[in-house]
């Protein structure tokens, strides 16, 4: 139910600017919905694009799950803060510090009962006030108990 394996775009970079892990295992009844919370921590001095950056070229924060037979209903992201940096003419929609992402799962009525591990990928791209760092993907594992 944890994990913080950061996969950068070009592999020689080892610095992890962010970590993320599910807060707790999820229990879900067949035919019902349940929420999974993922806690994300970004190092001080850095910001990452929100899920809705205002520039088409910027890479949004995105959490995806591979969780069959569970279905992802939606994921709620924190609202970006509008921040102005020396390198941007217009304010950017960014996230800093610690925050949570919440995914709502649905278990089909025919889902097999029992514990299973579903995997998630959190993709983000961070910058500081002078430079940007390559997009990275943090792999997540979430324990889900279907009842």
């Amino acid at each position, binding site marked *: 139910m944890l994990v913080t394996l950061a996969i950068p775009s070009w592999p*020689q970079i080892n610095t992890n600017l962010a970590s993320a892990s599910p807060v707790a295992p999820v229990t879900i009844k067949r035919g019902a919905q349940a929420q999974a919370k993922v806690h994300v921590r970004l190092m001080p001095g850095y910001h990452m694009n929100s899920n809705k950056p205002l520039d088409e*070229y910027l890479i949004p924060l995105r959490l995806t799950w591979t969780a069959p037979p569970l279905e992802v209903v939606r994921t709620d992201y924190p609202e970006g803060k509008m921040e102005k940096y020396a*390198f941007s003419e217009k304010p950017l929609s960014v996230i800093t510090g610690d925050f949570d992402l919440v995914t709502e799962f649905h278990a089909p009525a025919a889902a097999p009962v029992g514990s299973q591990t579903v995997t998630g990928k959190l993709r983000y791209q961070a*910058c*500081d006030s002078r430079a*940007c760092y*390559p997009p990275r993907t943090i792999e997540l594992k979430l324990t889900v108990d279907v009842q």
Partner: protein
Amino acid sequence: MFNKKTIFVAALLGTVVACSMSTPPAAEPKVKAENTRNAAADFALKDADGKTVKLADYKGKVVLLNFWATWCAPCKVEIPWFIEFEKQYKSEGFSVLGVSMDEEGWKAVKPYLEKSKVNYRMVMGDDAMAQKYGGIESLPTSFVIDRQGRIAATHVGLVERADYEGEIRELLRASTGARVGDAGDTQLASNQH
């Protein structure tokens, strides 16, 4: 009352003062001493037209090698400067060479190049290329390479336009000597961080 001579001198002084105030101070070049410069590693990468570009193609030129990506906002501050440098100093033996680190390749980069009217050559970078330059940890990262193919200055992150311009001018003024690649193509440019 002032006589004509006094008025002329005052006007002249005023002009001198006004000119000195309106002209930004020249940036202090920060190029490395010649005997401390490492050879820039050669490479062979494709440009947007599929043609192979090698650093050795730039024999005898001053080169600004710029690693960037379309998702890098600070990089986009520098690109208009580089477009102007390419126009202004090309005839003196200067070139900008962009290295895109976009994962999505030309599909992402070409539209941006067209929209921004980038007038200098661009290649698509990869991990091997980044490794040759000591590992590119963040963008923008730029290397200012002298006429002998040696790294004279390195910039990690956004810097002032005047920093680049001062270095380019100083290197262009330097006499031509050995050619790009003479100092050893395979030597790692590992002194940038």
